């Protein structure tokens, strides 16, 4: 009774620990890269596009993505 598990996901996942604050698998790391790309693009459109062109964002995102996929 006492140590019943209250929270339960129907799946357990194989994942590894990188510099991101939780265990991630390959899908997660690509997913985080895409999320960062979108967030960065919107931020760029709002605040930075007046000074620097937008095509910097994909390049920057790919670099960040490579780091995350390999080390995250």
């Amino acid at each position, binding site marked *: 009774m006492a140590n*019943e598990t*209250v*929270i*339960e996901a*129907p799946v*357990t996942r194989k994942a590894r620990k990188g510099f991101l604050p939780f265990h991630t*698998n390959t899908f997660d790391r690509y997913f985080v890269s895409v999320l960062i790309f979108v967030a960065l693009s919107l931020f760029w459109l709002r605040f930075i596009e007046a000074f620097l062109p937008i095509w910097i964002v994909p390049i920057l995102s790919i670099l960040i993505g490579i780091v995350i996929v390999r080390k995250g």
Partner: protein
Amino acid sequence: MSRTKSRNILGWIGTYALWISMTLITLLPIYWLFVVSARTRVELFGRPTLLQTSFYIDNYLKPLSTPAFQRYLTNSLIVATSNALLVAVLAVLATYALSRWKLGGSDSIFFWLITNRMAPAAAFILPLYLLFTRAFRLGDVTLYDTRIGLILLYCLFNLPFAIWLMKGMMDGIPIELDEAAFVDGASTWTVLTRIIVPLAGPGIAVTVILSWVFAWNEYLFAASLTSVQARTITTGLAEFVTVTGTNWGEMAAVSFISLLPALIFLAFVQRYIVMGLTFGAVKE
């Protein structure tokens, strides 16, 4: 000793005071809805009181006797029932597959399911509206304003919920049972209908009831993807505010009809409602 005893009594009084007032707060709006639905126009704009002795049944009879409203009610019943049954069948098949086979990428499937369950309906109305009116067509017939469209569409949020909810139950059925049946030469279909469904019966029942309630309660998709023929009762209720103006008594009566299923099913499923709303992640 007497100090702890009096503290105990104070604790009891506090608990009951808290819960009686919580119950009153919960019931007050619904009670007021009922009171308004029982009043004539004249009574309504008199001094507001919470007591009600008479019952103005016309508020119920008038909507119930209009063809449009009867259609809304039948549509809601048909859509919710068909959807709940469809979801139950598909969810049994899907959870059986996810539970008994090691399918590659099944954790991504569970993630995808949860995004469908929690995605804001508002973000889907534009693409679905365009797809329903333009893309999904056979000659002149489109999915727009059809009951079948709604039945299929409600799988979007009910099916993920049902699969998450039933996966744990399915894992709880010992795999030795189906192995033994397979050794005896049973087909997958026999195993499903003779072993899995009877053993998972209570879980399936809960899933059906909760899916039914979610489908009955849905508003946004029904409002954007139907116009006349397939309107459901929730959209009919919204029309009382926007289209026909302010016939408050009838609006209250329709609201009351639309929340009757909730009142009826509450006693059956209240133990499972938490599991339902957290799609089985929080167990009780």
